[in-house]
């Protein structure tokens, strides 16, 4: 009975997990298929005929590729900003007890408890009130993105820090490591996976954001805003090309990272 139970937990859980993963990829398969679609009319969103035309001319629809560049720029800058500010905050909050700590925690928690539509609208009201109404664009989007990514970074890094055994650092110092040596050689490498996943999360959140961006963008068009605009008029199939390419690039980057990590481990 126990053995049967163990077999089930060994294999059935994995099977269910893989099935869920497969489910997560269903829309991706559709997007890839549609990138080869030659639609009869722009309004109809059905697969009509196979073509390579979309792939040969991905920047065909006006403004598509420039919106993509804008999104990548904002995403990278927002990731750097939010990861930096958020990691610092996470360290302060986990390592130290101080007055105002719970206040800081509330301040970090609130943006996550706020619907994006509220954050976007209130930011717009602020920008207009201080006379930034005409300056809405790249920088106001970036400000907003760093703001809403920040809390997610803090929470992710803090979760990692909380799971950390502080005795490891103490042991390093007992072995005559200075405080900074103990930090950089023990604590930081152990927290780093948390920081990395926080940065990944921040980029994904920023790159994908539509709702807050919609309120703070002025005339600047990010990629999600381009898609939203296109969805009202009839979707150019090139959007699926970009969607597929984005997916492939992400997978490629990750595979290369994983392979080089394995090679490093083998050398060691």
């Amino acid at each position, binding site marked *: 009975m126990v053995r049967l139970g163990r077999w089930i937990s060994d294999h059935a*859980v994995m099977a269910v997990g893989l099935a*869920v993963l497969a489910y997560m990829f269903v829309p991706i398969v559709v997007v890839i298929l549609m990138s080869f679609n030659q639609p009869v009319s722009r309004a109809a969103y059905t697969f009509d005929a196979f073509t390579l035309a979309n792939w040969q001319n991905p920047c065909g629809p006006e403004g598509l590729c420039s919106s993509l560049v804008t999104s990548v720029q904002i995403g990278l800058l927002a990731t750097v900003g939010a990861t930096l500010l958020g990691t610092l905050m996470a360290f302060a909050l986990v390592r130290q007890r101080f007055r105002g700590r719970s206040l800081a925690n509330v301040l970090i928690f609130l943006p996550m408890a706020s619907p994006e539509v509220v954050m976007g609208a209130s930011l717009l*009201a602020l920008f207009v009130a201080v006379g930034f109404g005409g300056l809405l664009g790249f920088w106001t989007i970036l400000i907003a993105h760093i703001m809403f990514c920040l809390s997610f970074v803090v929470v992710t890094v803090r979760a990692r820090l909380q799971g950390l055994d502080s005795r490891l650092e103490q042991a390093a110092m007992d072995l005559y490591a200075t405080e900074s040596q103990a930090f950089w050689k023990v604590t930081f490498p152990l927290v780093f996976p948390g920081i990395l996943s926080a940065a990944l999360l921040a980029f994904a959140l920023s790159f994908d954001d539509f709702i807050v961006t919609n309120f703070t963008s002025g005339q600047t068009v990010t990629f999600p805003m381009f898609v939203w605009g296109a969805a009202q008029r009839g979707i150019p199939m090139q959007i699926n090309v970009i969607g597929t390419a984005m997916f492939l690039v992400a997978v490629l980057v990750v595979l290369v990272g994983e392979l080089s990590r394995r090679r490093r481990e083998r050398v060691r």
Partner: protein
Amino acid sequence: MTAGAVAPPAAVPRRRRATVWLLLLPGGLWLTAFFLVPLVQLVATSLYDPSGSEELGYAMTWSWSNYTDAIDFYAEPLVRGFGYAAVATLLCLVIGYPLAYAIAFKAGRWKNLMLVLVIAPFFTSFLIRTLAWKLILSDNGFVVGVFKTLGLVADDGRLLATGFAVVAGLTYNFLPFMVLPLYASLEKIDHRLIEAAGDLYASPVQGFRRVTLPLSMPGVIAGTLLTFIPATGDFINAQLLGDTTTTMIGNVIQSRFEVGDYPAAAALSVTLMVLIVIMVSVYIRKAGTEDLL
């Protein structure tokens, strides 16, 4: 402590305190300036005289009636928004837990790869994925066909533009927000605890229920919050996959803002936020982990 021996003992706490504030200050200022201050502006807007407009300006008249009017008028989308989000969150937990568990305990050397696969679909835009679901659930599509064969959908029925489609879209789009925190807390569990349960004659099921599940509760709480909160305010899924009978509170807020009815939109936004904060605090108190906040 070696460091303490070098510096005079009293100076250490003061330096530490300064360091803490230095670490907190940049992020804290950012959140204050671009989250708290705008929020105060939003609350103020919700009390403006509703007869004003963007061109003429608004008068601050402490119009509490904005709230009663908004709630009276939009009670249905408000309740629907919370309902859809709750169902989607529950579905995310049910399908996300086995995946997180498999990655944390069963994946072995494929752990990192699987983790990446969880995020990979989400490198394509939220909107593109949702539009893909629109195609998958479309009236002549495969899914509707299967559902009709199984008798789950009437012959002239449809999935698109129903609550089912909206909940399915929400579930799909917020799944990683559930899986990643679940994984993070499962991964931290000391395997020896589970083995010890087995050594003490707990069956795998008992071991899971009495050891693994309680230890993963921080992940469950974080995951449900990260899923439920954005799902409640979402309007993209209801806009693209639903119809006028499936409007959520997010749609109402968005459209009120779009037509320039700022006081009503602000009042609805504040109502939504207050309700979320109340529900979340009750939930966290019940679950007994305040440390997550």
